[in-house]
């Protein structure tokens, strides 16, 4: 059974047995939408970002203020520029340095499988499809449907002027459908997959493997944002710098946002030996955790996760050479040892800290599962050398504390918008025929 919450721009809950009618409506909607100039689309999204911030029913919801920032025109222009080199490719054939004209055509219908870790992930995925003029059928966790719909509900009221023409958010909305269905149902999942011209898959290892093995059409492109792991490393100079305590505040926010369920959430913090003993740095880290806003510090967790954290704390307290520093509740946990390795994630704001001789000690630990490495290295040459080494071993993003979750493309090493379009050519007539 498929439940559709948004189709043809209408927010109505309807049940379907298959995706035929939903896909047809998205295809119809995307024809008018694809004819819109990209700049007009960006203008609509920019207005959407401003409007959600003004709407008191939405603006306090988690992640909405970041959405508003992310939808700013300058940011979207930058994303398009990075991905397409020139926005005009989306609106028609353009000349370039070769002999042919090139254009970026949308792939068609993008089917999105949204993971359950981040409430606003579905929206970010939709916007990427919008910026590539694709239609979208979005399967998302049921609990996040209301949030994403509440943002999309702002679209119909938006109209923008671009080159003397008026463009409406309704046109954008008509190319989007939001659905839920039981992911374990192979039959429905196969139908969803077969409806796609492009599949965008977010999720853990099992989910990604299962979805990517579903049958799909020969031309279908599959973009996978699979399971990843992130960590942080700070060098001596950074730890001894004046701004270090502020950096720790930023770092614990990276730990706290999404309660460590995102692929960009850090699980281990490596600290280069400095003039401050490990205990001192740990106590600063404790203070930073306690300075978190209550909404981030006291995020509810499942009783299963509680048990895992309680067990980890006890293991470290009972083990020689290990320690655990934590408050009485499960707001956050620091697990300390000297083993130079990465640790299996616990989630729920549990950070493993380890003292290292030099930041280079962590380089052998990096592999292709590593997404973000938050580095605290002030010396530019050392930073770049470190970044070159860890990215060559597989890491995708080298960032600074406080920015681990910033949704900047490329993500997971992928230029998403570029993958969401087909690059087509128009060869010029030979000069003799002109």
């Amino acid at each position, binding site marked *: 059974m498929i439940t559709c919450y948004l189709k043809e721009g209408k927010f109505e809950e309807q049940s379907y047995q298959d995706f035929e009618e939903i896909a047809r409506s998205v295809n119809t909607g995307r024809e008018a939408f694809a004819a819109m100039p990209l700049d007009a689309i960006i203008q609509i999204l920019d207005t959407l970002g401003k409007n959600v911030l003004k709407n008191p029913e939405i603006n306090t919801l988690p992640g909405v203020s970041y959405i508003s920032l992310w939808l700013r025109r300058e940011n979207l222009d930058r994303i398009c520029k990075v991905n397409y080199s020139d926005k005009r490719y989306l609106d028609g054939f353009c000349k370039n340095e070769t002999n042919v004209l090139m254009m970026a055509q949308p792939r068609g219908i993008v089917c999105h499988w949204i993971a359950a870790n981040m409430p606003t992930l579905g929206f970010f995925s939709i916007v990427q499809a919008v910026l590539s003029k694709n239609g979208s059928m979005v399967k998302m966790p049921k609990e996040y449907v209301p949030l994403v719909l509440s943002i999309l509900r702002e679209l119909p009221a938006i109209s923008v002027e671009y080159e003397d023409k008026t463009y409406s958010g309704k046109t954008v909305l008509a190319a989007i459908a939001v659905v839920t269905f039981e992911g374990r149902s192979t039959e429905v999942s196969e139908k969803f997959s077969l409806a796609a011209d492009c599949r965008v898959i977010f999720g853990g290892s099992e989910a990604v493997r299962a979805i990517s093995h579903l049958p799909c059409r020969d031309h279908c492109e599959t973009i996978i944002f699979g399971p*990843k792991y*992130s960590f942080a490393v700070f060098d001596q100079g950074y730890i001894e710098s004046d701004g270090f305590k502020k950096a720790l505040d930023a770092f614990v926010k990276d730990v706290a946002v999404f309660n460590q*369920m995102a692929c960009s959430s850090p699980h281990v913090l490596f600290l280069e030996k400095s003039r401050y003993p490990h205990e001192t740095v740990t106590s600063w880290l404790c203070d930073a955790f306690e300075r978190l806003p209550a909404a981030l510090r006291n995020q509810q967790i499942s009783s299963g996760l*509680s*048990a*895992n954290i309680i067990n980890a704390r*006890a293991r470290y307290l009972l083990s020689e050479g290990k320690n655990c520093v934590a408050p009485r509740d499960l707001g956050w946990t620091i697990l300390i040892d000297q083993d130079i390795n990465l640790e299996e994630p616990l989630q729920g704001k549990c950070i493993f800290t380890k003292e290292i001789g030099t930041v280079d000690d962590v380089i052998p630990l990096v592999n292709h599962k590593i997404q973000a490495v938050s580095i605290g290295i002030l010396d530019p040459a050392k930073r770049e050398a470190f970044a070159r080494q860890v990215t060559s071993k597989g890491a995708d993003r080298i960032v600074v504390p406080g920015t681990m979750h910033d949704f900047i493309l490329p993500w997971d090493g992928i230029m998403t918008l570029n993958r969401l379009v087909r690059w087509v050519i128009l060869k010029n007539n030979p000069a003799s025929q002109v």
Partner: protein
Amino acid sequence: MPETEPVRTYGATTREKLLTQAPYASEDRQKEEELLPIIREQLKTARRNNRQIDDFFTKQGIDIETIQKPEDVPYIPVQMFKHFDLRTCPEQEIVKVLQSSGTTGGIPSRIPLDKATTINQIKALKSILSEYLGKNRKIFLVIDHEGINSPKLAFSARTAGVRGLSIYAKKTFYLLKEEEGKLSLNMPVIRDIVENYSHEDVYAFGFTYIIWTVFYEQLKKEGIQFTFDNFTLFHGGGWKKMQDLAVSKETFSDTIAEVFGTRPDRILDFYGMAEQTGIIFVDCEHGNKHVPCFSQVIIRDPFTLDPCDIGKTGLIEVMSVLADSYYDQAVLTEDLGVQIGVDDCPCGRKGRYFRFVARVEKAELRGCGDTFRESR
């Protein structure tokens, strides 16, 4: 086994006194006053005899002398019995290490026992069971196969139940048999029971899920019904599977009471674990589990870890003064329960009373954050 070990005296109240008095006669406050001095002394001994436990206290900056409430006693999560030696007496005093198979992870819990602890456990269990069975020994029916009690098998919740409850048995019968890993009715034994023991005092034990899916199902097919004059069933475990089958505790009690020709209030669910052998928390006739005087139960909020208000579901912590040989003074389980009240259960038993809610669901990593290991 002789029961003449020297009695260890802790504070004003001896543990011996707690083990001989009526198990549910003390009010909660009085019980806490009696338990805390004993526990404090036990914790001091534990620190002296086990460096890991000493570390556990030191790293948390715990001063035993300042422990004034049961909830301040540092709890050890039950999983730690799988990973650490939680012995609290000198090694040469250990007479047996109980290995419990458990239900998760495959690693057994290791529970070291000395003589005194074993005796205390037997005394405690006798004290609890006497409340429900009276003083006399009875015919004991085990709703399981005989192999479950084999010393060759790892100790499991099922084994613990059979061995523990057998202390009241004058004769034991196994009502099931196992062939090629499948359980079925042990018909010759069942016929013998029906024909010769219906008018005797009988009590039985079985694993809830097995009673329902094997014993009851097959009895129904065979059209067998017992007609005991005086019968009590103790059952426990497998409630998650029962929930999956949508069988409530009430349905279970009503149906099984009919099978044995007894009243539903003689079908007694109990809660217990191998790590706290000797203590079982048995349902009273009002469906509440009571805490005996040598034990305490704290329901902790799964996030704040503070004791929950009455009526709020949380993690079950069980406390006990029975063990000198391992850390069972405060064990945090991976079960959820709810405290129903204190000292005022209509059944008349004093102290806290609670209900089991569910096992904690195993937490799996959510989202796209994942292991750092590369897949092959």
